[in-house]
């Protein structure tokens, strides 16, 4: 009891206590459906319960862009992308296939978009890894730079 109370006061048990359940089919604007009473929006943020999915970007531009602020899965959800859009019908398979990603994000466009990246273009690697979006871009856990396995290319990965 005592140890738990101390840990709790230090915030060390919080991650466990706060691990949200993931509910399919709930609009991403309904934070409480998954997060319960936990405060996930910054203090003073406007009530988004009635906001339309996809409307976040009207306020969140430039400095306040949601890029890197929210897990990618949330950004997709807030843009109106549903579980089925990536995972197909039925119970979601373990991983969405890259085909689902490139259906919206054409590979050519991605290659062009990152052409000026420092050191190397992450979407034009010679190992063919770029074809597997899942290597770097995660939806339900933090994304990671797979190239760092062997190289020191330091790119932010959305």
């Amino acid at each position, binding site marked *: 009891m005592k140890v738990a109370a101390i840990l709790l006061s230090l915030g060390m048990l919080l991650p466990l206590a706060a691990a949200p359940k993931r509910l399919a089919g709930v609009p991403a604007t309904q934070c409480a459906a998954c997060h319960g009473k936990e405060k996930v929006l910054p203090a003073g943020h406007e009530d988004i319960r009635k906001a339309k999915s996809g409307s976040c970007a009207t306020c969140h531009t430039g400095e306040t862009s949601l890029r890197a602020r929210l897990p990618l899965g949330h950004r997709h959800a807030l843009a109106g992308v549903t579980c089925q859009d990536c995972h197909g019908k039925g119970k979601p398979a373990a991983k969405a296939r890259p085909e689902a990603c490139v259906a919206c994000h054409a590979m050519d466009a991605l290659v062009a978009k990152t052409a000026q990246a420092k050191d190397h273009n992450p979407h034009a690697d*010679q*190992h*063919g*890894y770029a074809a597997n979006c*899942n*290597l770097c871009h995660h939806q339900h856990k933090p994304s990671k730079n797979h190239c760092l*396995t*062997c*190289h*020191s290319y330091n790119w932010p990965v959305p």
Partner: protein
Amino acid sequence: MSDEKSGLSRRGFLGAGGAIMGGLALTQLPLDGAAPKGAVVDSTLPRKWDETFDVVIVGSGFAGLAAAYEARKAGASVVVLEKMPTPGGNSIINGGIVSAAGSPLQAKMGIKDSPELMAKDMMVAGLGLNHPGLVKLISEKSTETVLWTISELGVKYLDNELVQEGGHTVKRSYKTYNSSGSAIVLPQLAKLKALGVEPRLETFVTKIYRDKDGRVKGLQVREGYEFPKADSGKLKTIRARKGVVLAHGGFGQDVAYRMIQDPKLTAKVESTNQPGATAEMWREASRIGCNIIQGDWIQVGPWASPDEKGFGLAPHFAQEAASMYGIWVDATTGKRFIDELANRKIRADAIMMLMNQGHKCIAFADAKAVSRLTPGVMDKLQKSGVVKAFNSLEAVADAYGMPKAAFLETVAKYNTNIRNSDPKDPKDDIKVSTKLPQGTLPLETAPFYVSRLLPKVHHCMGGIYTNTEAQAMDVSTDKPIEGLYAAGEATGGVHGAVRLGSCAVIDCLVMGRAAGSNAAKAKAWG
């Protein structure tokens, strides 16, 4: 009484049947659970197989993919199992240099060569530990195999360039257009995909099932495995009707296993290999009775740096500038410690011995020496901080904590050697293994440049003992293990003590193809 009785009767049972049943009795209980806990005879097959293929291949590098292609083309049903989230292992990150003796490109360039000469070069470097039959086969098949990668897979090589890697007596190595093994692996993957075979990624092979009759009959895997979490994924069994091909590569990244083979290779020694180059399958192959040979011949590259990952760019500076036209120094003493032009093994061993005594070693060159490097390389190396520049020898000594007087004396001594010898035939008292390169000059032109030296584990020469049919041999009978084939860096005996650069790719392709086609030809069981 009754206790004693049952004890007696149990002893009686073991006494009578133990010799045959002991191993079985030990392992009948854990069953489908997990890999056996120790090196026990475990001939228990799973109660049911989840899937069945003719040929089941472990590993998706050059060797595994070559095996898959030949087996599939021969009509076998094939699955390729790969534990990592990406296919290609070390093969897809390799340097793309491939040897071929007596090739059309050599003919075009007027270079005389033969499989016999290639075999000789391999045996000289390998200190004669190489198994001659394997070396002969690979040398003889080298040219036709490279031509096969061009005609069958569509691999693109540089048109007018051959490489002469250290230890080869002639220029004989093709170079892929992008200086990477990916130029071979990606076409292999594409060809296989067209035949309906795609490697199953994140599928970790945990166990080989070898039956009481001695035959290998299938594998246990963890599907959905997340490297390196040993218990991740779901256990599943896969039956191999004709054969299993072990093409799981080397163990360059497995510190525990490599320290058993060569205790010098502590965690301080990094590796040029992909992180999944670990030894689980080496242990499992031993457990089921493969003969692992020459496992302690592990190639370490002496030229790498602790200040960048993997192979990186430091070897260009440390080798092409500091080793050829400069010196390597033990920073702890300020003195030179090795013939800078000796072979990779001699130099790497020397550095590792010093490191394990807490010493640090550096590669040192002056402005004139680095002027010979490929344009652009020094810019990158300095920008990344892998090579540092200094305006005086004293500043170098300060930066690396060297005893100043000793270091100044070391440089002065080297400079005297060079200055006092004929510029056309420069001589030094430490670089004695070969002629010094023309144009060697005293080290006296600032700025001075330094990279730190950290040998990195590069290649495993040893491995599963196979015959020229790529059959894995049984450790007790020296006969092929039925249903088991092996190829690539997972096998031993081809390269002996030292693998020559560019000979690994050709080994993997020749023996991988043999393993795949022979497995497809094997008699099916059950």
